[in-house]
């Protein structure tokens, strides 16, 4: 599922970010891989708020990434969850 950004600025609202918690994501380059190995799937592990900036933390097995809303929509694809 692709994420559409709308409105002004590239910031998540706190509600948007918290709704993404525990969602599963893959990097854009892997979105068409049908037999995706487990280690390519990450999940939204946390939300960071500093002043007005809200960013999400994404945890992959060997990587931790911190992304703004624009970066998140550019680099990640949300996976359908059961």
């Amino acid at each position, binding site marked *: 599922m692709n994420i559409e950004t709308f409105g002004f600025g590239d910031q998540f609202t706190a509600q948007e970010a918290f709704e993404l*918690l*525990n*969602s*599963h994501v893959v990097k854009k380059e892997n979105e068409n891989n049908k037999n*995706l*190995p*487990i280690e390519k799937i990450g999940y939204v592990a946390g939300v960071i708020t500093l002043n007005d900036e809200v960013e999400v933390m994404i945890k992959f*097995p060997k990587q931790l990434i911190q992304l703004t809303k624009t970066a998140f929509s550019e680099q990640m694809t949300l996976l359908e*969850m*059961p």
Partner: protein
Amino acid sequence: MDGGSIPPRSTTLKTDESQLNQAIAPRNRGCSFFVSDTQLVSDSPKWATEWHDFDTFLPSSKNNTGTRESYSFRKAIFKRHPYFYNSLKSHYLRIYDQKNLHEADLFLYKIDKSLVIHDLNLSSTPAEIKVFCENISKKCGLTIAEYGLNKTSYQICKGIANKYTIQIDSYDADKPFIPTLNKLACSNWWFRKINKLRIQYIEQVHRKLNLVNKDASCYASKFALENRKTQLENSFEYLMANQIVNEDGQTYTLLDVYKKSVSNPRIRKAELMTRIRGFEEVATKMGHAGEFYTLTSPSKYHAYSNGKANPKFNDSTPKDVNEYFNNNWKLIRSALQKKNIHPYGFRVVEPHHDGTPHWHILLFMHPDDVKTTRSIISKYALREDGNERGAKKHRFDMTSIDPNKGSAAGYIAKYISKNIDGSDLDDDLYGNDAKPAASKIDAWSSLWGIRQFQQIGGPSVTVWRELRRLKESEQSEVVDAFVAADSGDWAAYVMAMGGAILPRRNRPIHPYYETKIIETVDIDTGEIIQNNLTYYGDVKAPSIKGLINQNVINLTRTRIWKKIVQPMTTFVPKNESRNKELVKLHPIPIVRNSLAQKLRRRGRSLSNEEKREAPLDLCK
């Protein structure tokens, strides 16, 4: 061990034509090298009849297998890896017979590659590895001496470590890098790292050569078991030889401390069973359902299948497979949290006969969540290669716990027992005696660094253990939890800590940690220097001191203990009763073995009573 270095019996190439025709591959028969009296080895004490008499341990009928180049090639490899030469020999001949020489040589080449990292031969003995580590640490030490404690030294030394697949902390301008350089210049640090690599690589080759399975050696190879025995023997000797003393002069050996801690398998098992039983009582009280799941990895992770080597095997180690399960579980856990499902229970990791791990999970949850939980776990369990044959049948097994048929604790008790000491069990799944099987599972988990038992959800066991040390408290929340813990009632403890389902931050009691500072006196100036650094210069991690509730600290560790280190050479076994005590402590019968050896050294054999207790093979 060093079969390849048997002095050759032949030094000169025979010119007998019939023998040459037999020994030399057709394509090489015209080569002048083989039709002269070319001297092959000049310093042999004996002369042989045939050049291939000192071949690579192949049976005499197979001595002339392959070409001259192939002979030198395999001889060098067999010599390099003495642990495997029998097995390599049989595999080599089988591949040669079934396929061709090229495939057989390729097989040897791959095995050799997997045991050699640059100039480091992992098949070397520990003594040889020690020499190697001393040399490499000296090399790093010289680099540091030349360039100083700076980034250049760090990068050069990091390059050396990475060459041997050893990862070190990344360079961070804000973080001190001196501890990393101190480690790289220490031969003991290198030995710990490389010896770990060594035993894991050797064990993995055992798995590749089908030496770890129900027909050869279940769960772990004989090499792994021997290695674990030596390790435990050294640990016990250290525990017996060293003492700790407190400010009141009370002295105990480290062994006495070991016996009373959860490192003692008996205590570990009892504590685990108490916790499982407690969770079950909580679940019964709350009306929660019990579920028992078994997760098995895709077939590509199994080295051995259906009585033969698995052609799909992707060379993954048990550690890799456990990593796969861990990654899988992270996704399952986050998916469950997304659905607001918070199960609690335990998981146990145990090996299949070929060393590939699988997970048993006991979970309690609200009955309405059972269906969703099953569907989520099933989806992720079958996400990788879920369409392969037999996947749906074998990869994910689920059972609802019916209290009329048996308790949840009963379901998992056999797995706990099988994986700790094998007591209360007759045999394992493959018909082996449970106690030696437990020893092998212990060797397996130690070798691969796999954590076998883990609690899922529920309150912290660290708090439980500290509460059992606590003497008194005036805080009502702490007193409630203390009474429950002191009476060994996990269910009451869970309720006192806010129930089974509560985020950790909301629990009433938390562990309290403090950094230990060692004070030393400068002899020249008399100045007291406070030191909180480790041997290598890292800042010490805080250690537990007590419990904290509503910002009030309840100290549980009030005494100051100091270790009295004695040189290992001064160790003399105190008496036989102590050795007998050790036998009871650990499932691996190492101490019986050493007891038998020590007695033999003293010219006395085991008594009848001791023989009854000790395994037969150790009493010989």
